[in-house]
């Protein structure tokens, strides 16, 4: 189940269900920090890909490059499907809930549609539907400060899914939550993923979370950020508490941990 990519260099071949392909992407920031070097990643339709690595390995930079928020300094980002359609079907979930404190939950979830010119009255249906999906029905009129950390994150996810994205980018969305809440949100996220047919790129520094959620884990090393190992997780979905407590899960976690340790070593050696 291990598959060495050796820092892989193959570009995205069109027509194989690729949503987005990064080929030889590098990013050097103005200060001279090399955040990414020769980074390649092909995300196929319907996948749940995790980027796992230590802090400073450029995980978030990858997401921002895919989202088009920052431009790579080297390499290519390919959208084999219709470029515009794909670009507009991206949603982003940040580490913090990033809600507007002055707006109600409804207002926050309405935001992406509002930017596209959909008035509140006609957005009511989709917004309420999104809130129902994350279990926040009945909280449309609450303000973010009235919600717990987990509920804020649910509102943030509702905002991400209200535009019916094809590609969901998540940047350590549950890192700041307690374990119980995180487990619950992990389960709910998997249900939504299967139900809505998303493609997810998920950034995390938690081995357990990445193994539990993903169909594929990319292990990254830091300074400069690059892929050191790709681990396919061929366990069937739906996954639940049964899987979380299984020996198989523990074994994959151990292997992934070893890969991560090796990545840390590689990072220090570089």
């Amino acid at each position, binding site marked *: 189940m291990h598959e060495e990519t050796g820092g892989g260099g193959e570009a995205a071949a069109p027509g194989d269900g690729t949503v987005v392909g990064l080929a030889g992407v590098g990013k050097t920031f103005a200060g001279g920090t090399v955040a990414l070097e020769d980074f390649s990643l092909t995300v196929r339709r319907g996948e749940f890909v995790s980027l796992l690595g230590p802090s400073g390995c450029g995980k978030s930079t990858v997401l921002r490059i895919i989202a088009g928020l920052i431009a790579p300094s080297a390499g290519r980002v390919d959208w084999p499907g219709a470029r515009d359609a794909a670009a507009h079907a991206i*949603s982003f979930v*940040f580490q913090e809930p*990033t809600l507007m404190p002055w*707006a109600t939950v409804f207002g926050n979830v309405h935001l*992406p549609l509002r930017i*596209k010119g959909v008035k509140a009255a006609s957005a009511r249906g989709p917004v309420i539907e999104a809130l129902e999906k994350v279990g926040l029905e009945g909280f449309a009129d609450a303000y973010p400060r*009235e919600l*717990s950390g987990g*509920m804020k994150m649910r509102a943030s996810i509702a905002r991400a899914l209200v535009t019916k994205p094809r590609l969901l980018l998540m940047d350590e969305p549950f890192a700041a939550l307690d374990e119980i809440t995180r487990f619950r949100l992990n389960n709910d996220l998997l249900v939504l993923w299967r139900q809505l047919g998303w493609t997810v790129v998920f950034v995390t520094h938690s081995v357990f979370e990445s193994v539990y959620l993903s169909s594929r884990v990319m292990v990254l090393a830091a300074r400069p950020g690059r892929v050191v190992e790709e681990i396919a997780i061929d366990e069937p979905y739906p996954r639940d508490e049964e899987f979380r407590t299984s020996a198989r899960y523990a074994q994959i976690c151990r292997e992934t941990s070893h890969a991560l340790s090796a990545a840390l070593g590689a990072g220090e050696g570089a």
Partner: protein
Amino acid sequence: MSGAGETGRPRSRGPAPDADELSRARARARQQIARFVMPVVMFAAAIVVWDRIVVWNGIPHYIMPRPGLVAETLIEDWPILADALANTLEITLGALVIATVGGVGLAILFTQSKWVELSLFPFAVVLQVTPVVAIAPLILIYVDSTSVALLICAWIVAFFPILANTTLGLNSADHNLQDLFQLYGASRWQLLRYLRLPTAMPYFLGGLRIAGGLALIGAIVAEFTAGTAGSGSGLAFRILEAGYRLNIPRLFAALILMSLAGIAIFLVLTLVSHLALRNWHESALGRER
């Protein structure tokens, strides 16, 4: 606010409060009462002390009147003083409105173009650091209408806090939210309308509260500079006039009206700020302990 208390912040519905909780509740209640009673008691005490000092030292009323005499004068001279108060308030509020429109407008312009900010901000700073007393005579010479001159002086002092605070607020928008707006292809106008302006609201209101007091000070300073020559008959003019005539009780009465006007402006703006922010901003939220 359906279900607001359901999970986010659960109200305690547990067993009956124990002695500790009751004593804390009593302490809170005492504090609430003290908040209103203490200032009133202290003010009353200060007035009594003032009265006693005047009586015991036999101070003549043209040096320092007794509080009772000041109150009488306030009622007797009310037509004159009310007129003066109205004039001063008119200048103050006019200046505040222009300062708000101009300050917010310029702040928005600053955030839209770095070039505009770089070229205009120094002027704003020059206006701010130059004492208005020093510029007022020039303005009174250059501008024919006294009330327009007074308006300009009051505006100069009230303008800067609004500009500076609003600019800071507009630039304080959450970076992740800015990214989100960019991701969804928001226009500049949408970014301003849905993100920057709401973010700037608490900052702007803080500036407005400072500006309210400053506008009054600006108006009064300008009136003093205009002096008795001015056609305006604001509170400062009445103070000067009363001083020349040694009508000290009226001077005191005018002074008190001035303070009350300042307090009223502050309270009104505080209320406006509270009403605007009560739903979401930390400054307007009570804490449950």
